[in-house]
């Protein structure tokens, strides 16, 4: 008996299924379990795939493996304590989450945030955007087989994390943006640290683009892959870079400015192809725009206090607390009972690196929230996964999955 020639797929099939008579092949659909532990799902996501050969006919995401009940826990904590929970949702964009939570609560409290605090918030949130996009770029390129980019990206990410550590004492779970301003006074020498990083960034982004933009393997894996029309994306509640890569010029920072974003000059990158390549270019361009915003924030940083003048909400200075009776009383009240928020409800949408994030906070007038609904971008964006997968090849699914840039902590909360 001769060894079958398995260089062509027809004979490979015969070799694998020797019982089949020649010319008659039966096909059957296979169900494949992708995840929950799978390197390219970037977290604990399980996808049930139904395959017809190499083509995905049905994809069903199964989420909830990282569900920690953050919305439930928020109802048991003080208003200020909830800030620490928001860090743990989207653990690559902690400061964006802090800000998204602080804004609606400040809206209910109707406190005025001083300019310096607002500008520092913008600066930190834009650094967070660069940080998040760097991690996305590194892991996305790694999924597609380009390993070097990963090391380059994490080199710059390290610099950003050092800046965060300088500000807050923490690299990841910063909790630096608090209700009423910032957690601590900005450290000595922060301008130099941010300026050094920010001035070097454009040439670093050029380096990544040199590695990828003309790389034929990368281009073939991303161009024309994972295409979805704009109407479909809009109907599926998809936001952020994905929708801008589909041709819609919509960014919450421009359409509904918050935290004095209207004072900054930046562009919204828009592409119309709506494939993985367009999403890649949108995010690269967003990093450059964030760099511009950080530069403007550095140069035009206003002088003044870094927290609001609201003694019932914001903790007093150490010095005042030890010398003034009222400050000590307020300190005691805030730390033990927490401050009260007037009854009402507020929703403020903001633009996180992944899309639209908005916290809907409901107060019944006590020192704990009645309800905090977290409209997170990853949850909405992940709904597009079946539409991205179905009818496409398994090999392309990894590129499409990476282009969604979801964070499972943000999906499950």
């Amino acid at each position, binding site marked *: 008996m001769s060894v079958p020639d398995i260089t062509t797929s027809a004979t490979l099939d015969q070799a694998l299924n020797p019982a089949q008579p020649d010319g008659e092949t039966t096909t059957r659909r296979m169900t494949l379990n992708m995840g929950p532990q799978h390197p390219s799902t970037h977290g604990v996501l399980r996808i049930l795939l139904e395959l017809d050969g190499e083509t995905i006919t049905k994809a069903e995401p199964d989420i909830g493996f990282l569900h920690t009940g953050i919305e439930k826990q928020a109802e048991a904590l003080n208003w200020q304590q909830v800030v620490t929970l928001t860090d743990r949702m989207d653990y690559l964009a902690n400061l964006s989450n802090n800000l998204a939570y602080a804004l609606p609560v400040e809206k209910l409290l109707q406190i005025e945030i001083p300019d310096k605090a607002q500008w520092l918030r913008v600066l930190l949130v834009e650094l967070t955007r660069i940080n998040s996009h760097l991690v996305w770029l590194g892991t996305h390129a790694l999924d597609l087989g380009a390993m070097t980019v990963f090391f380059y990206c994490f080199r710059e990410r390290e610099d950003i994390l050092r800046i965060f550590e300088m500000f807050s004492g923490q690299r990841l779970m910063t909790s630096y943006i608090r209700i009423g301003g910032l957690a601590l006074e900005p450290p000595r020498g922060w301008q130099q640290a941010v300026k050094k990083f920010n001035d070097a960034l454009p040439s670093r982004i050029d380096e990544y683009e040199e590695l990828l933009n003309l790389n034929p393997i990368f281009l073939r894996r991303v161009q024309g892959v994972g295409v979805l029309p704009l109407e479909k994306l809009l109907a599926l509640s998809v936001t952020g870079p994905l929708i801008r890569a589909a041709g819609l010029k919509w960014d919450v920072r421009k359409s509904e400015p918050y935290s004095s974003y209207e004072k900054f000059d930046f562009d919204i990158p828009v592409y119309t192809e709506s494939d993985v390549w367009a999403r890649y270019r949108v995010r690269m361009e967003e990093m450059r725009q964030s760099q511009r915003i950080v530069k403007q924030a550095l140069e035009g940083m206003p002088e003044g206090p870094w927290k609001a003048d609201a003694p019932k909400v914001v903790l007093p200075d150490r010095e005042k607390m030890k010398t003034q009776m009222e400050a000590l009383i307020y300190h005691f009240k805030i730390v033990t009972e927490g401050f009260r928020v007037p009854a009402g409800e507020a929703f403020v949408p903001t633009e996180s690196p992944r899309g639209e994030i908005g916290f809907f906070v409901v107060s019944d007038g006590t020192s704990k929230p009645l309800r905090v*609904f977290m409209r997170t971008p990853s949850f909405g964006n992940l709904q597009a996964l079946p539409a991205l997968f179905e009818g496409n090849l398994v090999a392309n699914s990894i590129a499409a999955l990476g282009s969604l840039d979801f964070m499972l902590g943000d999906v499950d909360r």
Partner: protein
Amino acid sequence: MLPEPMQSLPVPAALEAWDPHAILNASLDLGETLLWISPGKIVSVCKELRDNQGFERICGVSAIDRYPLEPRFEVVYFVHSVSRNIRLKLKVALPGTAPAVESVTCVWEGANWYEREAFDLFGIRFEGHPNLKRIMMPEGWEGHPLRRDFPTHGHKYSYQNE
């Protein structure tokens, strides 16, 4: 039944003209427009908003538990028009026993997971939803964790049967 200061707002006024019985109540607090919709009309209101008012997307759906008050649940719909840059909150009040409302997935596909989440965590049924099953909690979980009478601590669950 729009209150006086809201009659000049374009979208609530247009909805009021389209069906005078759809809006039960309305308010404008902190610059956010809130419309209370009659529970039976939520789908037709959403269709009208999408087709004739330019609301292309739904930003999210969630619920509030007002236990022990009655009506206990409020389902909140955050709808958004990107082209007109208008956001609306729609609310539907539901009773504490067997809360159910029609699903708006037929209007915006994106409501799918949000309604599943509200079903999972609050126990509100969305009639006509294509795939109404638990999304966050494990299958076979008893109770709905985001209800106010569900304990934050001390709930026992065993993974032995999985």
